[in-house]
């Protein structure tokens, strides 16, 4: 299967002890590897105040994973996250297509700028053309 890139973010209950949190993150990484995906990046956003209370909690640990894989590991991960009591919220976003589009747009703009620069008279040649 084609490899896709996903961003998985989840918020962990602020009352969980630090060692349990690290254990959870390790377990998530292991699960992804076991299901055939690869962890590109793992970002610990740390403790953050929520924009609105969730389950009467105003804070949470934000953890972000960037995963590359077929999508099967995402299905399994989401199933586990739904059951886990420590994880109060999660989101998965497929990013590879949007990123590719963005790259294409950047390339196009750069190309256009290059052609424009070629045809635009430079400061040295401009007075000659006018004369």
């Amino acid at each position, binding site marked *: 299967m084609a490899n896709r890139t996903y*961003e998985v*973010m989840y*918020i962990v209950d602020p009352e969980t002890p630090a060692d349990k949190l690290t254990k959870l993150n390790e377990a998530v990484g292991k699960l992804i590897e076991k299901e055939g995906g690869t962890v590109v990046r793992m970002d610990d956003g740390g403790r953050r105040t*929520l*924009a*609105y209370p*969730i389950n009467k909690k105003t804070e*949470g640990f*934000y953890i*972000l994973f960037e995963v590359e894989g077929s999508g099967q590991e995402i299905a399994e991960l989401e199933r586990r996250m739904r059951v886990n009591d420590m994880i109060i*919220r999660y*989101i998965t*976003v497929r990013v590879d297509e*949007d*990123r590719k*589009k*963005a*790259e294409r*747009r*950047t390339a196009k*703009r750069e190309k256009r700028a290059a052609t424009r620069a070629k045809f635009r008279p430079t400061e040295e040649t401009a007075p000659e053309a006018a004369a």
Partner: protein
Amino acid sequence: MIDREMDVIGERDIMAGGEEQFGDKAPRRYQRRRPRQVIPDYVDWKDVEFLRQFIPERGKIMPRRISGVSAKDQRRIATAIKRARSMALLPFVWE
């Protein structure tokens, strides 16, 4: 005589024009505005600082007629804001 009649007609025409202009059915025109900020090629839903620009005090997504961004960009920004909201990065409403 003929000249005067012409004058009267001319005045009426002007009046009629004025009434139309200030009537209830005058179309509301918005000035087209250029966006104040550069929209990156990839709108990241985690970039709260960038998305904040499109959220006035109340917490609603700024309409396109105010922000002046293109329809495509507006769509990308709106989905990014919605994703950020669901992860409590941005509020749904501000009191």
